[in-house]
């Protein structure tokens, strides 16, 4: 699955990352998968947490969103939607992902997947890949995905400056 860059952003502050999370919270719907790429400290969990908390807040719910590094998968509810937050760093490969039940969640739940390279060829074709890279004091973000995402990302300009 190789896609061109659909969009680039520069997030200057952690609050910019929160704003991107809030934008996603308004945009995402059941069946969407975000593949969050980037090294340790790139802001993957920060972005996922901002999304989950914003989605829950819209339905009057609030929960802690701990890092999923140890538990591998944390699930949440936000109104009618189920959210799966996964960190596959400690997973050996695609075979083990099957045990987590992630494949059943793809296509129905909102799935936020950190270290998605562990999925191998099993990554959903329709997923949006979000690549985070630390850059000086801020973060660079690049989006890759199939054509429908180009339209959906059109209103992203309101979040942060293009990079």
């Amino acid at each position, binding site marked *: 699955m190789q896609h061109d860059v659909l969009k680039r952003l520069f997030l200057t502050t952690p609050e910019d990352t929160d704003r991107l999370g809030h934008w996603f919270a308004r945009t995402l719907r059941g069946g969407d998968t975000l593949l969050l790429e980037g090294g340790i*400290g790139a802001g993957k969990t920060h972005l996922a947490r901002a999304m989950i908390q914003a989605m829950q807040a819209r339905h009057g719910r*609030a929960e*802690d969103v701990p890092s999923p590094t*140890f*538990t591998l998968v*944390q699930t949440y509810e936000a109104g009618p939607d189920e959210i799966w937050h996964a960190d596959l760093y400690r997973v050996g490969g695609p075979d083990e992902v099957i045990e987590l039940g992630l494949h059943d969640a793809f296509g129905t739940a909102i799935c936020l997947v950190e270290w998605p390279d562990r999925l191998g060829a099993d990554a959903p074709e329709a997923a949006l890949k979000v690549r985070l890279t630390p850059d000086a004091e801020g973060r660079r973000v690049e989006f890759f995905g199939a054509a429908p995402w180009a339209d959906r990302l059109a209103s992203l300009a309101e979040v942060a400056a293009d990079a």
Partner: protein
Amino acid sequence: MSRTLTLLGIESSCDDTAAAVVRATGDPKILSSVVIGQTALHGSYGGVVPEIAARAHAEKLDDCVSEALDRAGLALGQMDGIAVTAGPGLIGGVLSGVMCAKGLAAATGLPLVGVNHLAGHALTPRLTDDLPYPYLMLLVSGGHCQFLIVEGADRFRRLGGTIDDAPGEAFDKTARLLGLPQPGGPSVQAAAAEGDPGRFRFPRPLLDRPGSDMSFSGLKTALLRERDALVAAQGGLYERDRADMCAGFQRAVTEVLAEKTRRALAEYLCLAPRHPALAVAGGVAANSSIRAALDAVAQWAGAAFVAPPLALCTDNAAMIAWAGIERMQIGLVDDMTLAARPRWPLDNGSAPMLGGGKRGAKA
């Protein structure tokens, strides 16, 4: 206490598989405690490899249970009950533990007791030190960090905890960022011993906020930036840089934990406990710098400081057997409807709120 109870405990909610036999008389005894871990796999991987497959857990559980009984020199029929971790944790592991316990309970007619993994940790100071209720518990491990007032075998009040990473995870990730071996706790502590904690000033998030919530995620990002700045400036990291970074990191974690413990203690002391005590459990309690700081805070507050031995601080089944005994003693027994609960907050009472206020129970 009441009559003598001997329980088999089963734990498979995390990365390890374990079984143990504990007997409660006047002075509780651990008759056996078996843990099959994953330590051998750490080195090459840069992290603890989780056992995801339920089937693998189930196979190891059979071995653990028979070895725990052998070492205790007792037969299954000589138990008074079977305690099992029913959550929170990895679903495959929790499920296989619960299925195993149900099978044994059905075969023997013994009572089945479902235990919350975190309650197992939180009640351990009563097994090791016979600590009276209520005591303040800091549960600080790879996946957890929270302050609990332990008021009874099934009464826990959460005062606060991490809103993002747990300190154990921060240690592991610091080790990863600096090319130190896993698990990160011991290797970061060893490097820090050679370093200057004053050279790098890492952030202490939420330190200026009231309450006992903590945040450790920003620390990791700050460390990454310092590392990258040095690599850019001098083409790599010297041993000295790495030691100084570890020392600065460890000092930041220690100061945050100490200050938040001070506040949690103040809140706990409002209950006017007759024998005030601060207990610490979890792998992070093995860090000598953190341990010394917490000991000092407890002394300052006039509270006893209790840290169970490391083998009982990390995941084990003796704590599950003990928590099962405590539950049986107050009549809390489950039946075959016991369900595995991947998410199971210890304290459902403290409602979470958005913003800077108190957060709800996690996991």
